């Protein structure tokens, strides 16, 4: 069977919604939260901790309206979309695949609601309301005629309450016959939402354009009472839901004088106005056993506990730009933009690959939303997006996504050529539609880096305008042919508990060229981002579900003294016979205390440190002052701490100056490969010079290198990637290889950082620089700025009150400290893959700073 593959489209994928979340639902047991947003995705989350479980990509346009609901049993998710006449897609929750389609509703679907027994599914559309029998897809008769509805709700008896665009509320029995019909009581606003109390005795009505809620009788719709709205000025209450026990009523909408969400306890107590932050409440659901789920137009969602305090919160992922297009600062050539935030500006310099927060506007990027040469205009999109468009005809040339963390970003052309910060190529990728009945595939940009990571092209498009577009048109077909395979895990489901020392994983692979049954694809396995014993590779045929037994390494992620369950991430990554890496998938499993893997291998981890630093090169022009000392001090730190930390032993390979050669690097990486076991930690530090080329290749300049022929004696860092990929324990690399001095132009470190951190390599990276910039050293520090910050952080300045100093702590501290030391001239980069455990290279010493 051939798939109707569509032209790949670059789309953001920052791991959560970046546009307004317009639908929210939860299964009857309160295990899985489903959200759908105007970014075109539907997402499944763990209700317990907000962890992402699956992204569902519906057919049709990549963005726009979305409606979604999860069946009460939690197994199926119904997704309807923006295109009139498109079917309602029933996705399997576990594998994210479309299992079945229900015939189209004939209009754009605005809301989807399951009946409480899961047998019926209702669609509120821009036309008539449609109810299907889920089992056979037959339309269920509801006496609504052509009535356009705003909302529909079901009670336990199967009755339906419906709010019409005509301002009437109607009640239907389980067979669809009309029981009652009534106008809402006179007053401000228009009714737009309806919710049955759990016992069906009351119906709550929410209103748009006014802070108003009405309670009607659940038997005949007569008005019962009006919850007090004293002190609420402005805003509205367009969403209503009862708590699971019916003792609280939640209502929210556009924020007014007391916020966007309000709760009426049903015990006579005063109304509560929970603090949920900025944003419009777009959806509400009762949570089991208590509390509520709230979605906002910022794309975030949260779970309120019984005290109406957010217990779980999935925050917005896109930078929150304020103001309109005219507020965007743009440089003369358009390569620098400054975007207003609530507390300053986000400055993105594409040419320098820098992203910084600034307090004030800069003179080189004046506000106005148009480049100084008048060729380009910039248009902010949904959260974190900015588009560069041609001023004359509005054609998009480049799109930026800036993460809310203020560090990571990516910018891409319409074809997908891109430039990105370290870790930025994990923020977007290529969406590939498979026709109107199949879910779309998605390939993260990092997977396509070898072809599409082209900083030069991204800039050239801005400079050349339509000339660049001509180039990209030629590339389109070649780009499509280069698509790698896409793998999806279908079992076990996310969060499953593992009892043994082996887990059976089921998965599908879609063929790279869209032809089922094509050539074989190789599938490798990693656990927590690391290879497992024997490094098994499975050869599979695309289009069929394959099941493989994956042994779990002993003592995974077990820190000394930790007695809790552990989460392990099993990643399967496909590749083509010619070596192109495909889109992997990861399933997170709970490794219980009772599991064999946990019990068998509990032993204290060991630490392996490789530190190489070159100040004294054979070519005197490359001389540095402190690169060798950085390596010496790092080695001294771990030598000092070896009797105090969590590690059973510490092994150090230190090389400086003339002892840093291609051969010694290879020798020390082989030492890691041969010696490091699954529970161990390996840290690699490189200090000195490097050079890069346009293909993304990075060469570390060893002591004996000839800069005019770097490949003759330098160290090609593809060897570093390949070597560390095979190391079985946790691996982190610290790169300070762009030192200022001896080179006219700084090398580009980002492709190397992103490649190391790719899922199939699983290496955490802290880099002294990001993009094309030099790192600095100073006599006053007697180190490079990066090493000085690292040493301070390792010595206790990083992290919070805990004993362990983790890489994530170190990354945050090092970035802040280096920027401080260099007065903003050097900005470190970080890539910490989410599936890789957050290593703790050190613990806090009693005499730490």
């Amino acid at each position, binding site marked *: 069977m051939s798939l109707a593959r569509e032209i790949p489209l670059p789309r953001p994928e920052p791991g959560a919604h970046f546009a307004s979340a317009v639908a929210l639902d939860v299964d009857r047991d309160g295990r899985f939260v489903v959200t759908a947003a105007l970014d075109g995705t539907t997402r499944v989350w763990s209700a317990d901790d907000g962890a992402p479980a699956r992204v569902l990509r519906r057919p049709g346009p990549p963005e726009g309206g979305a409606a979604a609901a999860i069946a009460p049993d939690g197994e199926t998710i119904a997704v309807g979309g923006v295109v009139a006449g498109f079917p309602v897609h029933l996705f399997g929750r576990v594998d994210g695949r479309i299992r079945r389609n229900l015939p189209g509703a004939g209009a754009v679907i605005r809301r989807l609601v399951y009946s409480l027994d899961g047998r019926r599914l209702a669609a509120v559309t821009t036309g008539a309301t449609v109810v299907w029998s889920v089992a056979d897809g037959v339309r269920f008769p509801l006496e609504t005629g052509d009535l356009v509805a705003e909302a529909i709700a079901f009670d336990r008896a199967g009755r339906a309450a419906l709010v019409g665009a005509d301002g009437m509320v109607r009640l239907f029995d389980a067979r669809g016959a009309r029981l009652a019909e009534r106008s809402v009581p006179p007053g401000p606003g228009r009714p737009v939402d309806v919710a049955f109390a759990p016992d069906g005795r009351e119906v709550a009505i929410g209103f748009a354009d006014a802070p108003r809620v009405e309670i009607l009788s659940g038997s005949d719709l007569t008005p019962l009472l009006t919850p007090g709205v004293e002190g609420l000025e402005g805003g509205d209450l367009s969403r209503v839901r009862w708590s699971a026990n019916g003792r609280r009523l939640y209502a929210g909408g556009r924020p007014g004088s007391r916020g966007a969400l309000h709760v009426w306890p049903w015990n006579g107590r005063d109304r509560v106005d929970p603090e949920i932050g900025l944003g419009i409440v777009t959806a509400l659901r009762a949570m089991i056993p208590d509390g509520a789920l709230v979605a906002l137009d910022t794309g975030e969602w949260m779970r309120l506990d019984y005290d109406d305090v957010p217990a779980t919160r999935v925050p917005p992922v896109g930078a929150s730009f304020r103001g309109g297009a005219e507020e965007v600062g743009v440089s003369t050539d358009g390569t620098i933009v400054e975007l207003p935030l609530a507390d300053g500006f986000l400055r993105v310099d594409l040419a320098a690959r820098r992203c910084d927060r600034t307090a004030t506007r800069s003179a080189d990027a004046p506000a106005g939303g148009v480049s100084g040469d008048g060729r380009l205009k910039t248009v902010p999109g949904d959260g974190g997006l900015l588009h560069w468009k041609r001023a004359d005809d509005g054609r998009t040339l480049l799109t930026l996504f800036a993460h809310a963390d203020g560090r990571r970003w990516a910018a891409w052309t319409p074809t997908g050529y891109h430039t990105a910060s370290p870790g930025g190529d994990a923020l977007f990728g290529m969406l590939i539609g498979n026709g109107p009945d199949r879910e779309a595939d998605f390939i993260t940009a990092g997977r396509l880096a070898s072809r599409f990571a082209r900083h030069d092209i991204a800039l050239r498009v801005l400079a050349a305008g339509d000339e660049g577009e001509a180039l990209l048109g030629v590339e389109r077909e070649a780009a499509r042919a280069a698509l790698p395979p896409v793998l999806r895990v279908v079992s076990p489901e996310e969060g499953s508990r593992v009892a043994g020392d082996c887990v059976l994983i089921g998965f599908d692979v879609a063929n790279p060229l869209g032809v089922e049954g094509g050539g074989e694809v190789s599938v490798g396995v990693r656990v927590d981002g690391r290879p497992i014993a024997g490094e098994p590779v499975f050869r599979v045929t695309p289009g069929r579900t394959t099941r493989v037994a994956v042994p779990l390494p002993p003592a995974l992620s077990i820190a000394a003294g930790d007695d809790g369950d552990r989460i392990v991430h099993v990643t399967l990554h496909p590749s083509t016979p010619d070596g192109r890496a495909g889109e992997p998938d990861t399933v997170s499993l709970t490794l219980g205390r009772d599991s064999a893997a946990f019990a068998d291998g509990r032993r204290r981890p060991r630490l392996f440190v490789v530190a190489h630093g070159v100040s004294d090169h054979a070519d005197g022009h490359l001389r540095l002052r402190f690169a*060798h*000392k950085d390596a*010496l*001090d790092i*080695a*001294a*730190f771990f*030598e*000092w701490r070896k*009797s105090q930390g969590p590690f059973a032993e510490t092994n*150090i390979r*230190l*090389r*400086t*100056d*003339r*002892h840093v050669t291609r051969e010694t690097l290879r020798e020390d990486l082989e030492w890691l490969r041969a010696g490091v076991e699954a529970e161990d930690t390996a840290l690699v530090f490189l200090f000195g010079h490097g050079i890069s080329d346009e293909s993304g290749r990075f060469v570390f300049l060893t002591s004996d290198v000839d800069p005019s022929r770097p490949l003759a004696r330098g160290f090609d860092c593809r060897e570093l990637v390949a070597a560390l990929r095979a190391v079985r324990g946790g691996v982190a690399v610290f790169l300070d290889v762009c030192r200022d001095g001896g080179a006219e132009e700084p090398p580009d470190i980002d492709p190397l950082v992103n490649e190391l951190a790719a899922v199939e390599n699983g290496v955490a990276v802290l880099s002294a620089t990001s993009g094309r910039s030099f790192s600095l050293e100073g*006599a006053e520090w*007697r180190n490079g700025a990066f090493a000085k910050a690292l*040493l301070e952080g390792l*010595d206790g300045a990083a992290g919070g009150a805990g004993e362990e100093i983790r890489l994530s702590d170190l990354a945050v501290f090092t970035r802040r400290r280096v920027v401080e030391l260099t007065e903003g001239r050097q900005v470190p980069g970080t890539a910490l893959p989410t599936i890789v455990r957050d290593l703790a290279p050190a613990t806090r010493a009693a005499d730490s700073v």
Partner: protein
Amino acid sequence: VETRGDMGKAVLIVDDSRFARLALKAAVAALRPDWFVAEAADGATALTSLAEVRADYVFIDYNMPGEDGLTVAERILSGWSNVRVALVTANVQDAIAARARALGVVFIGKPINPADVAAFLEMGSP
């Protein structure tokens, strides 16, 4: 620099790296827990403090701000003939090594090996 007090033998560690001093200090303390260990971050400080410390053994880094470690070692040996000096370094040029050997200075590599430290501390007075 702390004073020696009433303890047994004394060691002076001269290195501009705090972590290098801490690592060496820990190694010495593990071998000779009752010995007094003093620290100095550069050659000038080491020379002024040596009289107070009355060190029997001196570990000295080669690359330091101000005078290099071997020059400082020469000054120490010219003033205190009963002191043993070790040059602690990861990397040394042949010419420097020859000069050091002529002075009777011992080499200890970085990262430090406890066995090398132990062997040095077992050496008697010159």
